[in-house]
């Protein structure tokens, strides 16, 4: 399954700097409230937003963990991101 960024979502990804983790700042435009995702949450959103079809596998490779240990959590989190309007399924 692939995802894309909704048309009216404002977003800024800030790469990790020093001790600060990667962050994704998201805001439904023009009236929504800004939200921040950090670290693994930001990575999941970024991978999905880039159109990665298998987010769990890509994340597992980045984090160097077995994909089976995170697949369920990643899928649930992606569903939550869609529910909040931060991602759309393609």
């Amino acid at each position: 399954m692939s995802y894309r960024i909704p048309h009216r979502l404002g977003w800024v990804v800030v790469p990790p700097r020093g001790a600060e983790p990667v962050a994704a700042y998201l805001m439904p435009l023009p009236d929504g409230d800004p939200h921040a995702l950090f670290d693994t949450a930001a990575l999941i959103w970024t991978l999905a937003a880039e159109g990665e079809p298998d987010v769990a596998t890509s994340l597992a490779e980045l984090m160097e963990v077995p994909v089976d240990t995170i697949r369920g959590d990643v899928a649930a989190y992606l569903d939550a991101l869609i529910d909040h309007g931060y991602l759309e399924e393609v």
Partner: protein
Amino acid sequence: METYEHMPLIAGVPLAAATLQVIADDAGVDLLHIKGASVDPILLQQSEVVDPATGEVRTKAVPRSSVDADVLVRPSHVKRFFAALRAHRWKMVYRFEDGSAFEHASTWIRPGLCHADIHRSFPGIGRRAEDAFDVLWRDRHTITMAGQECLVPHVAAQRLVLILHAVRGGDLGSPDIQRAWAAASEAQRAEVDALATILGADVALAAATGRLEEHRSARDYLLWKTLSTGNRSRTTMWLARVKAQPNPLRAVRTAFHLIAPKEGRLERDLGHRPGPLEVARAWGGQFGLVARELGGLVRGVVKR
């Protein structure tokens, strides 16, 4: 996923800019992003970064450290834009009249984002604001901020805006002037010069680029000489700004504006709408300030 109230500027500025663009698009308002996060990368500071994997050295543009989103709105669309902003959780904190003597920008805030400066004109540009906007609008292009398509003026116009902003602050050693003018090619400078002529910004540009004396007879020569040399005497500035006005009516209005207490700022300072007594006190304070400044000027003349 909770609301994030302390947005870092590196995210808050482009998100505010994107919000303004979406609101403008929906309301049919023409606006251009200026300064801050919208500046073309070739006008930014470049730093060298080493790729840790390959050891390769690359240059990378360093984002500007801006604290707000600046936009220039077509003057005839300002009223409509303000109504649209109010309908989308933005609140005006300073009117045009509460800002600088140029009365060029109004400040707005919105929960969760950095503030926005809404410009209806740009100090240093002498041409009628609507006509000047037309010139800048004609050569606009699109960039992406916070994932949204945002409109910016031509790079030559961006150079001019950065230069005019720096010289107004008396910062002739500004890195913006260095990058936008000193480091520009002859062709790029000619482009900026030509645009400044069209926009009536010759004198301000000349003040920033060491050519002000070529404009000694210009109405706004003294103004830009005063601003560019960082002369902070209120009285000298008052005289220079009044003298720079194109007609007596504008001169009177400017003279009044410069000494009148700013109601919006007074309200922010007091935390409530100022009453008659508080306004009267503020007027008294302003007159005292002017009297002291004039005294200083007179003493300076006597010493000479």
